[in-house]
């Protein structure tokens, strides 16, 4: 009761002029943002180097990337396909990454659906297998797959690259899509079926549009993994040469500036796609119903 008495003795807020208050912040408040900015800068160092030096002039008969700045030029962009074998390697990588992305996105999405929607025999084993797949050192993946292909007498080339790339992408896609699916209300599908939609129509009209951002994110990850892969490809490529393989070979003698041009192109395309996916995801999230209290 004494507290109550005290309370009533305090003048009501109306009677007091508002006291302007600035939230006082200690210097430590800024350490994290500053540190994080520095971190992102650090993360971008080699990328910046790549982009900047794709505009570096070279006076050598055989232009190669060095850290010496010799002046600005767009020459390498004009002559982006001037290095024989690099261009085919680049397009091989693009083609490989696209096909591997489509396949692994499809397979991964289906598996994610199975894992989220159902309890079935072998589910735990499947999840363990996926985790092992993700964590396994790439050299073990590549080496064992090579042995396997040889055992089957499968000629190494595009098809074996594709098999390998799907193999290491599919678990990533599954996990990404599953994350999206686990926030998905299964009632929506039942509602669609209730309203006369067959499972097929339900999938296309309801499920797919709603989990699409997840699939997109998974596909993007798969694309990035595929186009960047060196170690596994190294084992199973046969006589095919992908972009990273070519670059790794060239790295040993010095790389032509066109590698940076093409690297910048892949980077920009990836960035644009990722930002689009982000925007898309943001919009989709807004369209999701807010959970009602009660």
């Amino acid at each position, binding site marked *: 009761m004494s507290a109550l008495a005290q309370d009533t003795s305090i003048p009501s807020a109306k009677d007091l002029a508002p006291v302007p208050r600035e939230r006082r912040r200690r210097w430590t408040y800024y350490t*994290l*943002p500053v*540190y*994080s900015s520095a971190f*992102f800068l650090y*993360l971008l160092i*080699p*990328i910046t*180097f*790549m982009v900047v030096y794709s505009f570096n002039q070279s006076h050598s008969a055989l232009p190669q990337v060095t*850290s010496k700045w010799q002046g600005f030029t767009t020459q390498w962009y004009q002559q982006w396909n001037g290095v024989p074998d690099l261009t085919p390697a680049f397009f091989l990588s693009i083609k490989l990454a696209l096909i591997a992305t489509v396949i692994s996105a*499809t397979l991964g999405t*289906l*598996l994610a*659906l*199975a894992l989220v*929607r*159902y309890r079935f025999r072998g589910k735990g084993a499947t999840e*363990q*297998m*996926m*985790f*092992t*797949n*993700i*964590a396994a*050192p*790439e*050299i*073990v*993946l590549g*080496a*064992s797959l090579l*042995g*396997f292909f040889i*055992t089957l007498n499968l000629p190494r080339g595009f098809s074996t690259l594709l098999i*390998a790339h*799907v*193999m290491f992408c*599919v678990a990533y896609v*599954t*996990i990404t899509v*599953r994350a999206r699916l686990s926030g998905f209300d299964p009632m929506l599908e039942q509602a669609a079926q209730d309203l006369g939609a067959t*499972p097929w129509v339900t999938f296309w009209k309801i499920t797919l549009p709603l989990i699409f951002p997840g699939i997109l994110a998974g596909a993007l*990850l798969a694309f*990035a993994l595929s*186009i*960047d892969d*060196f*170690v596994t490809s190294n084992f199973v490529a046969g006589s095919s040469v992908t972009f*990273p393989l070519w670059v*790794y070979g060239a*790295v040993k003698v010095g*790389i032509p500036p066109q590698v940076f041009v093409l*690297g910048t192109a*892949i*980077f920009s395309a990836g960035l644009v796609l*990722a930002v689009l996916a*982000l925007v898309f*995801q943001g919009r989709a999230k807004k369209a999701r119903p807010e959970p009602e209290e009660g």
Partner: protein
Amino acid sequence: MEQHVPADLHGVEPPRRHTRLGRSASPYLLGAPAIVWLVVFFVVPLVTMLSLSIQTCDSITLACTLTWHFAEFPNLIGQYGDTFVRSLVYAGAATVAALVVAFPVTYWIAFRAKRKNFFLLMLLVPFFVSFVIRTTAWYTLLADNGAILTKLKILHLVPESFHVLATPLAVIGGLAYNYLPFTALPLYVALERIDRRVMEASHDLYATRRVAFTHVVLPLAVPGIFAAFLLTFVPAAGDYVNAAILGGTNTVMIGQVIQKKFLETADYPAASALSTVLLVLMLVGIAAYAKFLGSRTIEEYV
């Protein structure tokens, strides 16, 4: 209203229903393509390769026979024990470095940043540039006469003979840099999950910010830290590209040995045995994770 009492049906057995075929089969139908792909192109090759470690091969004809020859293991461990230890030390150092470097940033993104997705994307940005190019860029930047060291040498901040490349530091740094996204993402997931109300509750219960961090945030982030550790440490321990590009004489990692054994001298039993040891280490890590933190949570962090 008239009462509709169902006819007396007791005494008649109700028809037994079968679950619609599509329903019970659907998880298998959905999962089958991916599962089959992984089993055929991941599990089977892995098991095949591991079996090679107990086979004996002729290095000219390359005929191998299963001899249950386990002697390879002690031999190799004797011969490459140092390399193994070095690999584990480098991978461990790189992982710890990556954790320490990434933790404040993921903490900041999870708790303070406004555009979370944007910064997450920034974490993934290095993925869009080929890992070989990234490593080469570092190589070029850190070369003995490269942009960075030359300036430091001119300023006499480092002695003339100072170099970064071909040292353990370069390899560890390269590993830490290249696997950073794998460290940061599980950390972020774990931190993101911490209920803000738990933090408020801890402050309500007189915890200072430091105490709230050490007694609430850190313990709750442990599964994420462990997942990050596993996802960084295991691939890093088997990596060979960083050591090959950035390393030198005394920085050889086990991945390089395996690669040479596989591709240069075609010593399959040895290469397989070394890979087996690597895999076993990884599985021990996963098992430890499952034991202490429950197997359910593993998938949530990858």
